[in-house]
């Protein structure tokens, strides 16, 4: 039984390894893209290539966790350079995400409300659209 399937399986394996090898070759023999040209000129090439290889996957995964669907997350990541992703990957959980500015402070305690009202008047913050800071 084992001998019977051995031949087709090994043939399949050999074929798949051949395919694998081929795909790697064609992937490497290409025009060097402009982002890499710029990176070489900036002498950042090795550092960033390594960081970005981790970065692209990481950032994509975090985006999916943040509710972006997989296909869209891939597109977002694809449109960013290695350098941009490397920076992003390091601080994905602390990046500011511009959000609002419209809604008032729902659920905040009165104290915070008062503080922000005063700081709005002082021109330190601009949480409430109806408050105009003194000059």
């Amino acid at each position, binding site marked *: 039984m084992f001998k019977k399937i051995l031949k087709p399986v090994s043939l399949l394996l050999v074929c798949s390894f051949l395919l694998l090898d081929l795909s790697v070759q064609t992937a490497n023999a290409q*025009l060097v893209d402009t982002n*890499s040209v710029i990176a*070489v000129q900036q002498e950042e090439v090795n550092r960033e290539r390594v960081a970005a290889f981790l970065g692209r996957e990481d950032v994509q995964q975090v985006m999916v966790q943040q509710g*972006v669907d997989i296909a869209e997350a891939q597109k977002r990541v694809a449109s960013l*350079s290695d350098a941009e992703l490397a920076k992003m990957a390091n601080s994905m959980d602390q990046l500011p*995400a*511009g*959000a*609002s500015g419209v809604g008032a402070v729902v659920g905040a305690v009165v104290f915070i409300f008062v503080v922000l009202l005063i700081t709005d008047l002082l021109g330190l913050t601009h949480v409430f*659209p109806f408050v105009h800071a003194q000059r």
Partner: protein
Amino acid sequence: MIAGLLFLGLLLFLPGCGLLPIGPLTQSPDVPATAMVAGVPFFAQDELQCGPAALAMALNWSGVAVQPSDLSPEVYSPGLKGSLQNSLIGSARRHGRVAYPITGSEALLAEVAAGRPVIVLVNLSFSWYPKWHYAVVIGFDQPQGEVLLHSGLTAREILSSRTFMNLWQRSEYWGLLVLPPDQLPVGSDEVAWLSAVAGLELAGQWQAAETGYASALKRWETSFAAWMGLGNSRYSLHDLDGSAEAFHQATLLQPDNGLAFNNLAHVLAEQGKREAAQVAAQRAVDLGGPYLETFRQTLEELKLK
């Protein structure tokens, strides 16, 4: 109550909270005292959708007709209840526009004075209760100490310069230009512009990228990376003659850089010029560098053909 007042007092004297007078925005001497950008449409944002709204205003100004609701799937992250800066950048690229980040008031005023709206990231509140927000700066009046923005639900909102700087410093003065690829920023730096244009390649916007590199070459005629980019984008647009010409220019500028020879070799091969292609590929291998392995692959492939 007393504790509250103490807390407030403390808060006001914390570094970075800047009750210190920031004064009028600093500007370069050649920039006028007042300016207004014409032709920036206003889109009132939906709840949490200031990113798509701000980007839509900038894109429409640059000639791309989109609604904020078209952009929301490209920039908004539901889990964050907001939009990341890099998502705005990527989305602008996907619409064929150069996303060029700037920082600081000098750059901001110079660009606005040159007639370009600037997307800014501000924190409307403090770091302990952040309210991150994107708005679009469309004008300023230095003698009056005012900045004019399209923001949230308000078109042409007037903020005092001091308040604006307090809000803007919390993002380390992050601003973003969304430009047609034939319009260089006022204070543009060669590498920054080329990196921004190379971003268009990543989004598959080759025609816009080609225009961006061609524009770069009008200002920086001897830019190696710009010629390389021109060659790469023309190659992707199936303009083999134009591509070969650009890579050839790059080899003349940096005869000891293998990158240009490697790319030239590929184009020559596709033009059917086998011998010239092999000579170029061999040259790249001889010159070496961090992409030596790629150069070797190119040479091997050409020999097999």
